[in-house]
């Protein structure tokens, strides 16, 4: 039985529509919602929170229909990108705000506030007013305020977008630990794939107000259902033709090259092949390798992103610099291989 279930949900906001949203989330799941700007991620989040009324469909938490309940009766908290701290209250009052409805005893409120403040590392900030805090501190306060009421679901709308890389990293650690400690179910809208890989066990991909694919992170990233998802999750999409089967592998002809996949497809069919950039193997031997020239190189913290091309296709690859790094410079020829288990085939979409 799903903890949160959304059934045939439609929301009409005149200038934007959520269409036929169906979703099942289990208790303690950490779900990220990704998709291009304007795909409806935040609207979906705010509909779950109760800020928008569905025109059709149901939202159920533990089988209880909450579609028509006001936000204050849903037991769902939200954390926004720009923190949304109450500027007329200090940090203590911000965190205590949600407790005052449930608890009248000020001693218990104080204990609860101090406990969560300790958990998120803001004990020394309780008397400060929000506009004297840094971005990271503000977001810690917002997280504490959202969790102190022990919500059934914590919604987060791009909570780390306004923060620098280092703060973002420490907040990811905080979120990872604290949602485990509080056993909270989380739905987190993000543009940053690092959030997906670091925090989530499940992910949802949205486009034009619809869910395009959802499932476990590995599943979605390794088996995109269509071009849009593949492109969005950064996979390479190549067009090819199935030319036969050998040793349990399917042989795919892409231009003048033949690659292998463990996926099945009918011989003769035109297909699309998805390969994740990090699954591309730099090879030293010529056998079964494809020669490419290096067109672009970008260096991130401890990885290299390289754009490779030959006369048949262009690929993006992500590699960890090692001894092979010397060979990777713009204009150089390098050899690549694909692990057949990482080459995914989608039939019927080929050229």
């Amino acid at each position, binding site marked *: 039985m799903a903890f949160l279930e959304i059934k045939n949900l439609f929301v009409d906001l005149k200038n934007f529509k959520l269409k036929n949203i169906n979703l099942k989330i289990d208790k303690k799941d950490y779900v990220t919602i990704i998709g291009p700007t304007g795909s409806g991620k935040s609207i979906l989040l705010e509909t779950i929170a109760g800020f928008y009324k569905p025109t059709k469909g149901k939202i159920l938490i533990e089988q209880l229909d909450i579609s028509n309940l006001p936000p204050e009766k849903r037991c769902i908290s939200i954390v926004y990108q720009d923190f949304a701290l109450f500027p007329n209250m200090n940090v203590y009052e911000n965190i205590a705000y949600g407790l005052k*409805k449930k608890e009248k005893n000020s001693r218990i409120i104080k204990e609860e506030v101090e406990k969560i403040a300790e958990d998120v590392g803001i004990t020394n900030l309780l008397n400060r007013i929000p506009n004297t805090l840094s971005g990271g501190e503000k977001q810690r306060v917002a997280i504490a305020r*959202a969790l102190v009421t022990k919500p059934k679901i914590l919604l987060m709308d791009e909570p780390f977008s306004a923060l620098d890389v280092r703060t973002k990293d420490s907040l990811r650690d905080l979120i990872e630990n604290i949602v485990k400690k509080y056993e909270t179910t989380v739905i987190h809208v993000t543009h940053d794939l690092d959030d997906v890989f670091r925090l989530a066990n499940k992910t949802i991909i949205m486009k034009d107000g619809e869910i395009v694919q959802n499932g476990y992170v590995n599943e979605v990233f390794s088996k995109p259902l269509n071009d849009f998802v593949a492109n969005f999750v950064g996979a390479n999409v190549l067009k090819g033709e199935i030319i036969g089967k050998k040793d349990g592998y399917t042989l795919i002809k892409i231009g003048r090259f033949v690659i292998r996949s463990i996926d099945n497809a009918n011989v003769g069919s035109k297909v699309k092949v998805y390969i994740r950039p990090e699954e591309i193997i730099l090879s030293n031997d010529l056998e079964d390798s494809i020669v490419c020239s290096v067109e672009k190189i970008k260096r991130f913290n401890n990885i290299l992103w390289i754009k490779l091309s030959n006369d048949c296709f262009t690929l993006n690859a992500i590699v960890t610099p090692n001894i092979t790094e010397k060979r990777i410079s713009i204009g150089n020829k390098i050899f690549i291989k694909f692990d057949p288990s990482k080459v995914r085939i989608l039939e019927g979409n080929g050229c």
Partner: protein
Amino acid sequence: MYNKSPFKITLYIFSVLAVISISLPTLNLIFTQLLSYRSLCNFISTILNTEVWNVIALTYLAALTSTTISILLGIPLAYSLERYNFPVKKFIESFADLPTVIPHTVAGIALLSILGNSGLIGKFSPVKFVDSFSGIVAAMFFVSFPIFLNSVREGIAKVDKRLEDVARTLGANDFKAFTTITLPLSMRSIIAGAIVAWARAVSEFGAIVILAYYPLVASTLIYDKYLSEGLNSAEPIAVLLIILTLIIFGVIRIVFWRECNSKG
């Protein structure tokens, strides 16, 4: 270092002209009144005249009543207009601004036609509006309400709606979210709007003279004195009203501004 760019010099000249245009007539009136012996005697006798004080007290009381009604009706309307969309919103917005764009004598005639003894409301109302305190308040309210409404709307618009949304997810119902978040955060605009609306009510003449000439308020008393006894009789009352209003205005601003600033 001070930069005497042509732009800054132009700004300076125009700003000085603006300040002179606004302050000169008032300052001239005050100083001519206080600096000549004869006028000063005249002014002192006005200060000692209880009838003048009664009129000024009545004016301030009527303005305060009108402002209180503006606060009671204006905050809910401002919030509704700012936060919700509904079919007649544009219509209401246009009508709410109407008193500021029509001559106030027209406002007085409009009020008289509805609150007068044979008017739609006046005919049935147990409260008499023509030549009464209620009429003065009605006229003051009519012309000062839009000022208050627009100021409050501006203040509410500046409060991020998501703060209310977050408050709702934390268990506050819509009323509590409004009273604990939006209302305190827009208090500065509410107070500013109330002060300006009160001052506008004190200064109202056009609508009052048509709906409720009597009992006399400050503006109608000054007009009455001017018509019946000339400028020398009207001037001391005008100066007294200016000085008192400036003092009240200043004190309110200082007290409330300090209060608002201390709350961040």
